[in-house]
């Protein structure tokens, strides 16, 4: 895949994007990356003597999860409160839609009602997106609501795959891909939440899985979105830090090695 032409007058180094194929490495035992996450002691930050250059996307914006992730951590909002806060969020985001999207749970009556009321306001931004369990029937729900995009949980660290889901990497990834395929078949943009991405095996799991998503997006002619939740807060902002804790390296390599478009 060629990199996009640049209209900047100065020469830029553009590494090849996503040409190398990375294979998912299935293992009988989890890689818990004990050298960084000893658990009996505070986690470690390591530096690997390599860095990546700054490389921002052509356009940046903000997405919101006050009513989804935020609501998992406090008493539930009433429908009226969600509508009021959505209006204030739209005011804050301004006419350019700097706060571009806001996500809603779709599996309780109350959350569906809130999403419906917010849709009825007819604001251009923030766009309403969904959040569903990885169940095929939930895609009907997304479609009924007229939403274009929904988040799905695709936990990537071996802590989640082996210890929570009790699966191997291949079994977990196959399960996620079924859900992604179902979304695409329904014409819905899946947004894959790489839960615990800052503790996942980057080269053996994150990159190969991302490449599978890129391939599916190309075939379906629909975007597949990737979110990196720093679930436990292990992320660090330095490009010189080692994977999987370096946020710059995670993001940079996702574009340049896995070939995920910006």
């Amino acid at each position, binding site marked *: 895949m060629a990199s996009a032409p640049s209209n900047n007058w100065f020469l830029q180094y553009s590494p090849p994007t996503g040409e190398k194929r990375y294979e998912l490495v299935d293992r009988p035992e989890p890689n818990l990356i004990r050298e960084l996450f000893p658990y009996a002691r505070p986690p470690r930050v390591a530096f690997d003597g390599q860095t*990546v250059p*700054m*490389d*921002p*996307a052509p*356009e*940046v*914006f*903000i*997405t*919101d*999860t*006050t009513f989804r*992730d*935020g609501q*998992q*951590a*406090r008493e539930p*909002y009433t429908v009226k*409160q969600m509508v*009021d*806060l959505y209006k*204030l*969020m739209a*005011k*804050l*985001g*301004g*006419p*350019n839609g*700097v*706060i*571009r*999207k806001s996500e809603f749970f779709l599996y309780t009556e109350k959350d569906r009602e809130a999403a419906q009321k917010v849709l009825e306001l007819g604001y251009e931004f923030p766009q309403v997106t969904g959040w569903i369990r990885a169940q095929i029937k939930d895609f009907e729900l997304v479609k009924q609501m007229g939403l274009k995009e929904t988040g799905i949980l695709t936990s990537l660290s071996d802590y989640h795959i082996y210890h929570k889901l009790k699966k191997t990497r291949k079994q977990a990834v196959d399960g996620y891909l079924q859900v992604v395929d179902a979304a695409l078949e329904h014409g819905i943009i899946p947004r894959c939440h790489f839960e615990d991405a800052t503790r996942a095996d980057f080269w053996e799991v994150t990159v190969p899985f991302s490449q599978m998503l890129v391939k599916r997006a190309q075939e379906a002619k629909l975007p597949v979105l990737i*979110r*990196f*939740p*720093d679930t436990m*807060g292990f*992320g*660090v*902002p*330095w*490009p010189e830090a080692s994977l999987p804790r370096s*946020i*710059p*390296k995670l*993001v*940079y390599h*996702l*574009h340049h090695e896995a070939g995920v478009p*910006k």
Partner: protein
Amino acid sequence: MVIANSVAAWLYGAAANNGTLLGIGERTGNTPLEALVIWYVMLTGDDSPDLSAITDIKEYYERELGEHIPPRQPLVGDRFNITQAGIHADGLMKDEEIYNIFDTTRLLRRPPGVMITDKTGTAGITLWIGRYVGRDLAGDIDKRDPRVQQMEKEILGDYEHGRVSAMSNEEMARLFKKHFTEKWNEDVAKRLQQRGVRVEA
């Protein structure tokens, strides 16, 4: 760390950053949406977001949801642009920009303020009078004014007797009434009430 990580994600290629209002989320929370908007403006120079909505959101959470926002939380906490140090109060009086991040009065409807303790000194007291009573009603008061010095003496006396809490606005209003008797009138009482200070009749 979460703000630095979010900004790093933007700088190294992520198109979108995700957050929640006030940063409310599991365990220690998510990236605060209001901070992301400020960072977006700082990085892109796009001033289209209406930052006064940050204060609307703060007030909505406190009024309608009974949320206790930590007073030192950036942008939305009660004390985020309030000083207790005399030297900062002195600087604020000379030029607000010395000790205020940006025009918080215009952009957030949150003028920089002062909280009086034994460390605030006569500059802080003068600033308090300017902020709450106003120069139009109190006159052009200097920190060397003997009435200001009397007020400070009383405050320091309290702390010498073991006080540890900051002076409330109500206590400051009583001290002003006592030492600026000739300036005290109905307009002053009304002004203080408008600014949220409870004044006895």
